[in-house]
């Protein structure tokens, strides 16, 4: 389609209108981020007066100074890293071997095991039984609980299993000739061949861990263990609900709006850094796992 010539004037009008509309949609997607960034660099007075529209007004970094000097910010930032890295590694440690076993034709009861995985995608016991189970397992308020409790996800297993199944048999034959066992075939043949699929899953895990909020809020009580998202939520909720506290924070240089905006910016930056890497993979990833014959 792309290399087709434009024939008529009507076509040209169509193409230009289309580009303008897409441009507008892209701008409206981008604008809230620009707005928040500008807010975070504006003075509290101007922010509160609603004078920040596009660019920072009375540029200042006071809001960042306030945020970065809060020890709780650093504690939760560190925790988010722990949950993201630990959780992603934990997920891969379960998903890669599991998906590999499920992809092998000689596995007895393969249909049954696949169904065991797939059923969890259709039916979920819900919030309360999951919560009670975590409590019964003694996993409330623990790093390990968060890391292990969300390690496996049926969608990711099936996505990787589909990928493993698409690897031609001929690739492993040489290894089999050399007497490699299943562990070695997985490690030396399948994992190297499946780097893009594994990277896709790792990126899905990283993003969902980095952004994870609800269960961290429910399962963690101790401030020393909360991740950034919960800290951000607490900050916004306290500041916007408690007008008095909001007012004490109100200062000519920073206000709760600029402080919230600064935390938002700090928490988006890592996502923006890995986003270009992700883009390479997620389009394929969706199509690989989303629809299966």
């Amino acid at each position, binding site marked *: *389609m*792309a290399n087709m010539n434009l*024939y*008529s004037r*009507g076509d040209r009008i*169509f*193409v230009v209108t*289309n580009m303008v*509309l*897409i441009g507008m949609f*892209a701008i*409206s*997607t981008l604008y809230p*981020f620009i*707005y928040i960034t500008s807010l975070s660099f504006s003075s509290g007075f101007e922010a*509160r*007066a*609603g004078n*920040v*529209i596009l660019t920072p007004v009375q540029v200042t970094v006071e809001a960042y100074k306030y945020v970065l000097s809060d020890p709780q910010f650093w504690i939760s930032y560190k925790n988010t890293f722990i949950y993201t890295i630990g959780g992603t590694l934990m997920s891969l*440690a379960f998903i890669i071997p*599991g998906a590999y*076993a*499920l992809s092998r034709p*000689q596995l*007895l009861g393969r249909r049954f095991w696949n169904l*065991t*995985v*797939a059923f969890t*995608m259709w039916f979920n*016991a*819900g*919030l*309360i*039984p*999951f919560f*009670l189970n975590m409590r019964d*397992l003694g996993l409330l308020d623990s790093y390990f609980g968060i890391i*292990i409790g969300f390690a*496996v996800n049926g969608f990711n*297993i099936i996505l990787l299993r589909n990928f493993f199944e698409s690897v031609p048999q001929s690739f492993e034959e040489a290894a089999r000739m050399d007497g490699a*066992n*299943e*562990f070695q075939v997985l490690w030396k043949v399948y994992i190297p061949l499946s780097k893009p699929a594994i990277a896709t899953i790792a990126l899905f895990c990283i*993003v969902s861990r980095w*952004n994870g*909020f609800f269960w961290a809020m429910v399962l963690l009580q101790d401030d020393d263990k909360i991740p950034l*998202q919960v800290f*951000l*939520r607490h900050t*916004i909720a306290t500041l916007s609900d408690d007008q008095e506290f909001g007012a004490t924070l109100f200062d000519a240089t920073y206000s709760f*709006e600029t402080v919230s905006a600064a935390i*938002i910016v700090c*928490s988006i930056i890592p996502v923006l850094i890995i986003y270009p890497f992700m*883009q390479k993979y*997620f389009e394929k990833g*969706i199509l690989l796992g989303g*629809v*299966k*014959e």
Partner: protein
Amino acid sequence: MSVPSGQGVTGHLQWLLRHFRREWQLYVLLAPTIIWLLLFLYKPMYGLQVAFKDYSIFRGVAGSPWIGFEHFHTLFGSEQFLRALKNTVIISFYSLLIGFPVPILLALMFNEVLNQTFRKTAQTIVYLPHFISSVIIAGIVITAFSPSAGVINTFLGWFGIDSIYFLTKPEWFRPIFVGTGIWQEAGFQSIVYLAAIAGVSPTLYESAVVDGASRWQMMWKVTIPCILPTIIIMLIIRIGNILEVSFEMIILLYQPATYETGDVVNTFIYRQGIQAGQYDFAAAAGLFNAVIAFVLVVTANSISRRYSRTSLW
């Protein structure tokens, strides 16, 4: 693997033994995943029985006495629950009605962009919000819609409209929630349709060009009919997931003043169960929700499978 026949039970056992001796590694690889699923997803299904019990923390799930359908009785007599159910369906319906066509439209529009740099840049931008956490999105919404500092009220002020405290107004909750969802997900959802469009055979366009079709005509006569199966499948899946409202976002955006229009089944469960500690009652609401959702999803999937041989699993 076929089991050799005609050797009786011992033959089978010997075969099994040989199989496990040779293939035990596969089962070692599979075991962690299965154990995890049993421990974290299937065990809670067993725990669903609290929906039929008078649950007490000290007696535990198995030890609490059975009370039958009492919680379900209370549930359907509860105005709050019925309201939550109604809100879930209404919010889902609006999201579907308004949110469903947008990604299709976006994909069609992206397809008509000839400048690849422009197209890539625009796609990069519109996919981005999908990767941003709901806490941040909610934070942005709360800030942008705030009565004093929010940019929305500043805009309204230019037109002489008095500032509105949007997030405390029940009539504004659904539009803001649905709009936020579209803003966040429409771009990302367009990927599926773009893939479908990429699969349309170029010869169809070539013959359309020979027939002197304009780009507008080609979009209507070639592209849309070709991606129609994808559209229908996505629609069926969306209808199947009608009870799936992203309640995380609702928890972040609603407040008692907007429960009237914003409280959905999952947020109701969260408040009654986790916040108020009525685990058994809330689990009953959850079970009801899960069973309906299960029936809807399975039905949708089997319809989609029959229609197109394509299904979610």
